């Protein structure tokens, strides 16, 4: 009944469900699952029924076979009894005969002897015979003719016995003869004979009965045996059958369970509003996992064709068809059939299983057209390398409809979505049209009004115009000629300027790159060459050692060249520092003479040094640089002179001191003379190649001379020799200003941003260098992300992570690092700063700004010194390469410790009892504990011996203002200083806000929505790793400060109204030792500059100026600054959000020294400030 009921209700339910699924995805899915469950229950019931029926049959069978056995046993028993009965009859008959004989014998004995003793058997026989006869009668009851015989026998017995009795009586009464007479009548004998005949008849009869009964018994036995045997066989057969049925039922049940959970799982995977490709992918993943398929593909109907919507386990480069049509290939055939297609043991399928290690063709393939309402919406193909679960095809058959319906509703949804998008687009378009229309309308009205007015005026103007026209034409002609001339000249100048700018830019770039890139590898090859040439192993030949020496000396030459280049680039970038000191000229001369005497002697040159008359004892200059110039000149002189002399003379000439180096060498032709000082130009020439040297010496010398405030000139005649003269001012004003100008006189910075390091293009790194655990990663696993572009170091970190039981992910580039961190959210990150695409610091910054990743502790490893920036950006630790293994372990341990965060604690400082309570209620939770205090004193008390993750502070406290409390906390080392959220009832002035922002990142004004925000902010704090600094980190920071001495104590005025930037910039520069003053707009900036101008110890060294600000914008302020004489040289860098070149030009035009585009890049900003910071 139940079954039938279910079945009959099915079509209805099915239809309704389809409609629902199409209409509203979610609800339809639910109905679908219910339906599936019901169908499964039906099948279940059917198998259960079969099992119980067969069990009942077994029971019936055993009862019947028991009964048959019982009957058999009874028959056997009866037969045995009957046989025994015949036995008794035979016995009884014999007995009777022998009893009679006994009686006869007794009688005869008595008759012969007359002794009564002989009568005893006779007397005993009388009752015995009677008994025996009765027994026989009972035994023979059922056989009438036997009974008759028995009765006849009874007659004979009676007469025999009567005769016996008579003879005995006669003997006693009349004596033996009388008795003998009776006997001689022979009646007794006749009776005996008759009896014998009867007995033998009866015995014969009985024997034959017995025979019959025996046969009967035998038969009964055989029957019983046979029936037992038969029932045993049937029993066995039945048991086997039942066992088989039960096991089949179990298999069926397992299979149906498998099918059912498969269907349910599939429906769950298809649940929700999924796009077709998501849906297809989810279906595939689910089915493949569930059926252990190795590869799978999903094709969805698209018009008349089927298009591939997702694949699973198929390599990207597979030749799997992108789409197919009805009847095309196996897939197409399956569509025509409309049924699942199973193909086993195929030689070559188009599906491929791909993994990193190879590709295989699956051996078995199932193709399923997913059909509902007779329409095939999708085709799924599953490929198996091994045998697949037997019910797979069935499962797929059943899944067919679910998938089909899901695909259809996804399609409907997509269509709906695109309709909606189209409508949206149209409504936007309509809106633009209506706006345009309004404008047009207004314009038309305006025009018609204007038209009328102008018409009147037009007449009048016409006349005037005609008059002036003539004049104008004349002028225009003249102007045109002039203009053409001018513009031609200007064009030429422009071209020149561009050329110039370009060449200087190329040079700077070249210098910066080359020197930097070359030094590093060269260093190591020099060291190795040295090791080789030392031949410590003693295993190199003389020649090889010589080679090594050659390598070393060439390397030295190269290094010298690079050093020169570096020098030059330093000077040009204005980074060469000058240390003026009194220099004794006499000593200088003798030192130089001593240095060059050997060289001169070697070439047999005469070396002369001469101090002119009136030359002062000392001159104030940078000794090292002066020596560098003179040494260079002298070594050139020696080099280019084959015979004759080299002379160094020091003379005085009108307040200047002149050093001349004169030789008698090859000389320089007039056309080459102006080139010798030009870096690179000369290097192109042949001179340096012929005589060795870098060719940069003179360029450097000239730049150095300039730095020293002097000039370097050459006079020469080809073949006769050259004279180089260096002229220095006697009294140089080495004041700071002068120096600054000089160092800055160096070539103008190229128009683009001077970059600290040229950005290298992102190099795609093969990840396979170092293996990676991303496949193994499961939720909740401890994992470390190693961001390192050097594969060998990455490998070291990877192994170390494994040693410490972390899974390890490896990223080689900044982009990769970000992506990996966001996708896998590792427990901790070890980050290298020097990455191929971006700086690791930018990664750190982005990590800390992303809510998803900001809680992850990051340890920074770097070859360069960015300790401070890294720590202030929120790194938990910092290591300078090279790193020792122990240090690494230590760092990992620290990260580990971070991970075992205990219960979070919040300190609430609020004087109002009720609110305090309410806040505790609001914030406390399972893993957050609130400690609430009412006064500043209590707060300090708590902070002394406890650390909190976060503190919520009301500003008005009974014993101190919240602000002063914060100040105390920041100054006194003995208190822990957790991140603070200010929670206050009153409004805060801008200045107060700025002050508070130093200590607190978030300030909340109490109001209707404030609890919501408070909870939100607290949650945020608790989830981010607090960047508090450990003592050793602080030490590191101090060290870092000293390293960047350039910014130590320097004052930077930041003119910016955006809190975020103020905060960031302050955080970057304060730790570098710079002092940051803040102005909120142009006017405040001017005020600050004004105020600090008179105070020498507070003078601003550099200004960072935003463009877009309230009250007075950056450009206006910039112009105002330059208007003031005192600030003409004040370096100002403008920060602009505008991307356009002309906007940046506007900054420069307004007087800015440089500009930087927002959003600000930390590294760039720091280096830009370094560049412009006055030395």
């Amino acid at each position, binding site marked *: 009944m139940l079954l039938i009921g279910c079945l009959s209700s099915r079509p209805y339910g099915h239809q309704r469900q389809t409609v629902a699924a199409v209409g509203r995805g979610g609800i339809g899915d639910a109905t679908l699952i219910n339906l599936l469950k019901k169908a499964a229950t039906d099948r279940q019931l059917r198998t259960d029924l079969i099992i119980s029926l067969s069990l009942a049959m077994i029971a019936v069978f055993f009862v019947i076979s028991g009964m048959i056995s019982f009957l058999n046993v009874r028959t056997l028993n009866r037969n045995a009894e009957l046989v025994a009965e015949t036995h008794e009859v035979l016995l009884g008959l014999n007995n009777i005969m022998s009893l009679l004989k006994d009686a006869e014998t007794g009688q005869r004995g008595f008759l012969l002897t007359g002794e009564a003793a002989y009568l005893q058997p006779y007397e005993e026989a009388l009752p015995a015979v009677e008994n025996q006869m009765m027994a026989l009668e009972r035994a023979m009851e059922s056989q009438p003719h036997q009974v008759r015989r028995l009765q006849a026998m009874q007659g004979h017995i009676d007469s025999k016995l009567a005769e016996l009795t008579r003879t005995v009586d006669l003997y006693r009464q009349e004596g033996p003869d009388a008795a003998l007479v009776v006997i001689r009548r022979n009646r007794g004998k006749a009776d005996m004979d008759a009896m014998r005949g009867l007995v033998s008849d009866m015995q014969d009869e009985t024997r034959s009965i017995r025979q019959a009964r025996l046969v009967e018994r035998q038969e009964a036995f055989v029957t019983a045996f046979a029936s037992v045997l038969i029932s045993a066989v049937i029993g066995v057969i039945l048991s086997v059958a039942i066992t088989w049925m039960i096991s089949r039922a179990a298999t069926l049940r397992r299979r149906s369970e498998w099918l059912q959970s498969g269907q349910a799982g599939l429906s769950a995977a298809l649940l929700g509003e999924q796009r077709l490709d998501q849906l297809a992918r989810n279906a595939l993943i689910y089915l493949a996992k569930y059926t252990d398929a190795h590869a799978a593909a999903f094709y969805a109907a698209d018009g008349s064709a089927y298009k591939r919507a997702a694949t699973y386990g198929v390599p990207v480069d597979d030749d799997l068809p992108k789409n197919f049509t009805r009847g095309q290939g196996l897939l197409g055939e399956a569509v025509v059939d409309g049924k699942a297609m199973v193909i086993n043991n195929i030689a070559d399928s188009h599906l491929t299983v791909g993994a990193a290690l190879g590709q295989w063709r699956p051996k078995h393939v199932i193709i399923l057209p997913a059909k509902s309402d007779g329409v095939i919406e999708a085709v799924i193909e599953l490929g198996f390398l091994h045998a697949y679960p037997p019910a797979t095809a069935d499962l797929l058959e059943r899944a067919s409809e679910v998938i089909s319906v899901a695909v259809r509703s996804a399609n409907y949804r997509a269509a709906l979505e695109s309709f909606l*998008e189209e409508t949206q687009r149209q409504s936007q*378009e309509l*809106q633009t049209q209506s706006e*345009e229309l309004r404008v047009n309308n207004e314009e038309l009205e305006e025009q018609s009004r204007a038209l009328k007015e102008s018409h009147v005026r037009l007449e009048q103007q016409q006349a005037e115009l005609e008059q002036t026209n003539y004049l104008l034409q004349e002028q225009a002609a003249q102007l045109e000629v002039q203009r053409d001339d001018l513009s031609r000249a200007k064009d030429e100048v422009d071209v020149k300027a561009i050329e110039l700018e370009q060449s200087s830019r190329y040079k700077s770039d070249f210098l910066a790159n080359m020197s930097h890139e070359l030094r590093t590898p060269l260093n190591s090859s020099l060291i190795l060459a040295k090791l080789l040439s030392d031949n410590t192993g003693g295993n190199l030949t003389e020649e090889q050692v010589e080679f090594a020496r050659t390598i070393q000396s060439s390397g030295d030459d190269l290094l010298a060249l690079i050093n020169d280049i570096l020098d030059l680039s330093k000077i040009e970038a204005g980074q060469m520092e000058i240390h003026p000191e009194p220099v004794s000229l006499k000593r200088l001369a003798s030192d130089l003479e001593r240095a060059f005497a050997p060289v001169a002697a070697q070439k047999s040159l005469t070396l002369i040094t001469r101090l002119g008359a009136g030359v002062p004892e000392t001159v104030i200059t940078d000794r090292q640089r002066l020596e560098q110039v003179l040494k260079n000149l002298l070594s050139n002189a020696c080099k280019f002179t084959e015979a004759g002399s080299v002379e160094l003379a020091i003379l005085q000439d009108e307040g200047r001191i002149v050093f001349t180096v004169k030789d008698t060498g090859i000389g320089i032709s007039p056309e080459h003379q102006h080139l010798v000082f030009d870096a690179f130009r000369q290097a192109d020439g042949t001179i340096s190649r012929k005589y060795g040297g870098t060719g940069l010496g003179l360029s450097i010398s000239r730049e150095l001379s300039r730095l020293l405030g002097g000039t370097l000139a050459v006079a020469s005649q080809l073949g006769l020799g050259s004279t180089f003269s260096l002229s220095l001012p006697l009294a140089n004003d080495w004041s700071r200003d002068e120096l600054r100008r000089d160092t800055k006189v160096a070539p103008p910075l190229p128009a683009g941003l001077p970059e600290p390091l040229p950005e290298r293009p992102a190099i795609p790194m093969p990840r396979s260098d170092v293996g990676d655990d991303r496949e193994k990663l499961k939720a909740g696993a401890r994992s470390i992300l190693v961001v390192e572009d050097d594969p060998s170091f990455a490998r070291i970190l990877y192994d170390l992570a494994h040693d410490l039981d972390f899974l390890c992910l490896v990223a080689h580039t900044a982009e990769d690092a970000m992506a990996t961190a966001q996708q896998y959210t590792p427990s901790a990150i070890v980050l290298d700063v020097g990455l191929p695409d971006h700086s690791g610091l930018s990664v750190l910054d982005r990590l800390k700004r992303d*809510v998803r990743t900001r809680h992850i502790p990051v340890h920074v490893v770097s070859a360069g010194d960015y300790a401070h920036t890294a720590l202030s950006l929120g790194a938990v630790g910092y290591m300078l390469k090279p790193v020792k293994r122990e240090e690494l372990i230590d760092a990992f341990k620290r990260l580990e410790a971070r991970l075992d965060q205990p219960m979070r604690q919040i300190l609430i400082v609020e004087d109002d009892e009720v609110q305090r309570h309410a806040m505790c209620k609001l914030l406390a939770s399972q893993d957050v504990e609130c400690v609430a205090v009412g006064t500043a004193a209590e707060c300090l008390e708590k902070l002394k011996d406890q650390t909190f993750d976060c503190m919520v502070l009301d500003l008005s406290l009974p014993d101190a203002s919240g602000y002063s409390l914060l100040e105390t906390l920041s100054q006194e080392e003995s208190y822990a200083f957790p991140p603070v959220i200010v929670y206050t009832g009153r409004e805060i002035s801008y200045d107060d806000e700025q002050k508070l922002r130093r200590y607190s990142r978030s300030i909340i004004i*109490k109001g209707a929505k404030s609890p919501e925000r408070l909870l939100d902010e607290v949650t945020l704090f608790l989830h981010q790793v607090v960047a508090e600094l450990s003592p050793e980190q602080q030490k590191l920071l101090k060290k870092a400060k000293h390293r960047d001495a350039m910014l130590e104590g320097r004052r930077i005025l930041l003119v910016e109204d955006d809190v975020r930037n103020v905060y960031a910039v302050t955080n970057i520069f304060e730790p570098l030792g710079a002092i940051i003053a803040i102005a909120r707009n142009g006017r405040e900036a001017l005020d600050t500059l004004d105020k600090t101008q008179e105070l020498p110890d507070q003078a601003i060294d550099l200004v960072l100026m935003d463009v877009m600000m309230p009250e007075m914008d950056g450009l206006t302020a910039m112009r105002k600054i330059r208007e003031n004489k005192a600030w003409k040289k004040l370096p100002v860098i403008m920060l602009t959000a*505008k991307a*356009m*070149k002309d906007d940046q030009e506007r900054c420069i035009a307004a007087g800015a020294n440089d500009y930087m585009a927002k959003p600000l890049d930390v590294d760039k900003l720091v280096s830009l400030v370094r560049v412009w910071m006055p030395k």
Partner: protein
Amino acid sequence: MDAKISPDPHRPVGRTDDIEIRLLLEAIFQKYHYDFRGYAMASVKRRLNQARQKFGCATLSALQDRVLHEPELMTELLSFLTVQVSELFRDPQYFRTLREKVIPHLRTYPSLKVWIAGCSTGEELYSFAILFREEGLESRTLFYATDINPEALKKAEAGIYDLDRLKLFTENHRLSGGKSSLSDYYRTAYGAAVFDKSLRKNCVFSDHSLATDAVFAETHLCSCRNVLIYFDCALQDRAIGLFQSSLIRKGFLGLGAKETLRFSRRSEAFSEFARGERLYQKRDLA
């Protein structure tokens, strides 16, 4: 459909006027750095054709020639390309929702920044200023009013409107739940209404293009109404990206009546705050 929304620069377009438009926009960009290349094609086409007629050019190429060689023409062309339509308290319900739902949240911040992008001739700014004054937030708020049309910005800074528009303004103000009389905020003179100078005391007017420029400040609320309708999808996404990075965590974004985030690539970054009124809130994760 695609081609209508976003002209794909790589796809060859057969029609001459399409080519001309493309070239003209490119020329404008290269010469004047106004980037209209990502604007909705249909609108740009109409605007340019009107401009062409107005300037008496036979073809767009001729117009291009003139624009390139007569810089002063650019100012006028700009007023064709940027449609200046605005009202005080335009769509009053929007401002009502702001007042009722958003302001309570904003009240919890000690200081506020509001960015009105594409402020046109300033009506939207004055609406906000009046609203914030009525709600007592004005003193702690800094407004940034930005637009690419310098003429419009000048008008916005002047705050002078035709008297005959005031009727509509007053009605809108009332419908937006205004708590005071609009006449408190302006004086009339010579057939015009001059809005109170103090309303723009806390306002920075600036030339800023959503098409080319970067974010300049961290803001609590961005209102960009009826600007995105002129953009194609990619440019809309860019602009929304700017708002996203400018807004603080849980900051608010307001769009025009016909604009929506729904189809933007960045829709994930925002949640709908007040559905009917196109008010969105930046999500935590963004």
